[in-house]
């Protein structure tokens, strides 16, 4: 009970700090914070699949892109209402994840990873080549940020980055809360059981394949949400969102922060974006510097940054107690 109150307090403090960012920080810092939150939504959802269920997907960029293009195309053809657009993006991602997941979840481990990679690359080349619909290699450009209106009663403008920031923050907070609740739920326990021992899960009466598909689609929905928000942020949707290098980002971020906690991928997102900004100041080849850092963390920090920190914390409190 005590730990729960402490966690709730910490979450409230972080939320307050995030609310203060647009009033205190400069334009660029606001932008970077938004990028961190977008990657955070992507990675927190993704880690339900990787950390909780033990399935390694290399194709989640496709669902991110589905979210972005879903919002973009919905804006062009139906309505530029941002919330409806986000909903359209998430629905597009869910539908695509259902299709891809249905094909992939009958396999596990390396076969699953390669199948998701293949599906992701197919989506990428589809987006790249369907120029009439997606704009091909130019992407979908000119996505606008209309005000968020509630049945025409009142309107909240999101035109500037500082205004848009709060929409991102709302979705970020909702995503983290949802992921937290899922991890604590019976459904989350079922996923952990599948990770630990899929065969035994079947003998416990769990329809394993259906649960794998469910979490695959769920993580796809998080990816779609992040993608649709990025489309609004950058005013475009680009085919490289579906590329496998982008699919690798939540994998790296989860490894960096730690697979076994909710906080892991969030901390990983902060490190990832911050490092990219810092290293890019010195060299074009930021991936080289990033590779070195990743090596150090994977070899030196078992269980990612959060895994190591919580290990130290546990040791310290054990010493206090004993």
């Amino acid at each position, binding site marked *: 009970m005590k730990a729960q109150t402490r966690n709730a307090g910490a979450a409230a403090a972080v939320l307050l700090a995030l609310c203060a960012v647009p009033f205190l920080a400069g334009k660029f810092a606001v932008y970077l914070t938004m990028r961190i939150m977008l990657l955070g939504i992507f990675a927190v959802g993704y880690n339900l699949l990787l950390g909780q269920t033990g399935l390694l997907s290399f194709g989640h960029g496709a669902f991110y892109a589905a979210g972005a293009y879903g919002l973009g195309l919905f804006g062009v053809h139906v309505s530029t209402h941002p919330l409806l657009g986000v909903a359209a993006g998430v629905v597009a991602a869910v539908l695509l994840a259902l299709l891809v997941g249905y094909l992939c979840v009958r396999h596990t481990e390396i076969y699953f990873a390669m199948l998701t990679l293949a599906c992701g690359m197919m989506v990428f080349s589809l987006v790249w080549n369907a120029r009439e619909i997606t704009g091909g290699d130019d992407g979908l450009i000119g996505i606008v940020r209309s005000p968020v209106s509630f049945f025409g009663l009142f309107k909240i403008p999101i035109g500037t980055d500082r205004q848009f920031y709060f929409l991102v923050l709302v979705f970020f907070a909702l995503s983290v809360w*949802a992921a937290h*609740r*899922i991890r*604590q*739920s*019976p*459904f*989350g*326990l*079922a996923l*952990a*059981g599948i990770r*630990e*021992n899929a*065969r*035994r*899960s*079947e*003998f*416990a*009466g*769990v*329809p*394993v394949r259906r649960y794998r598909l469910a979490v695959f689609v*769920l993580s796809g929905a998080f990816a779609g949400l992040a993608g649709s928000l990025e489309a609004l942020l950058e005013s475009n949707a680009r085919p490289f969102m579906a590329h496998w290098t982008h699919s690798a980002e939540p994998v790296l971020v989860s490894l960096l922060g730690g697979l076994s906690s909710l906080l892991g991928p969030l901390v990983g997102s902060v490190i990832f974006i911050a490092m990219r900004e810092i290293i890019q100041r010195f060299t074009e080849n930021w991936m080289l510097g990033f590779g070195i850092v990743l090596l150090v963390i994977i070899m030196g920090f078992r269980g990612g940054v959060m895994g190591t920190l919580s290990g130290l914390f546990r040791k310290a409190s054990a010493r206090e107690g004993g």
Partner: protein
Amino acid sequence: MGEPLLTTRKLSNHFGMVCTARDLDLTFEQGVLTSVIGPNGAGKSTLINLLTGHLPVQAGKIHFQGRDITRLPIHQRVRMGICRSFQIVNVFPELTVAQNVMIPVLARTGRLWRPIRRLSRETAVMRETEAILEKVALLPERDTPATALSHGDLRLLEVGVALAAAPTLLFLDEPTAGMNPVERVRLLDSIRQLAREGRTTFVVVEHDMDVVFSLSERIIVLHRGEILCDGTPGQVRADGKVREVYLGDDVSDLFRCREE
């Protein structure tokens, strides 16, 4: 007596040239504690694997409570009431003892599919989990991760996870393997107790003859995928063929060891 719990008709299985089940016609009655014995490679594990869905059936039919389950996937058989434990401990290693038992309880009561509800609110499930842990004498270890348990406790947990599915028919594959005598007595006592309660019918695969003859009301002897003998412990003990291929072997093996 009523309808038999489970029947097989001409159930067969082979791995390449090796036949592990040949036209098996078996009937399991409600409430009869049955043991399956036989020398190594007799097809004991294959039989369990076929009946529980671990192995696909190559030929023949399985009926459970009158329903054809030959092609049913594992989890649906579990829902219907057929469960098993494993010869080699096969639990959820990183989860706590309570969580291990909770998964089948949640699955059975249809509460597993709940993504937003807090697990700690499922008080009915908690109570049931504790009752099962009590039965297998693991309640004091409820918050211990399974990996930290001793071998004997792991075997008990193995049985606990199987029991948590509240099966009407439960196959135990060498439940006492690797246990020390104290743990063995404890486990056999709880099996006897549970069998007497009558909700679960046990079918036990065992190597230890003392266990088999003291526990069972019925013994099925398998040899090279066929039924050699099927009857009460007395009938099996008196059977000449069994002595020849199995007990006799065992005895002569024993003598050979003594001589060396």
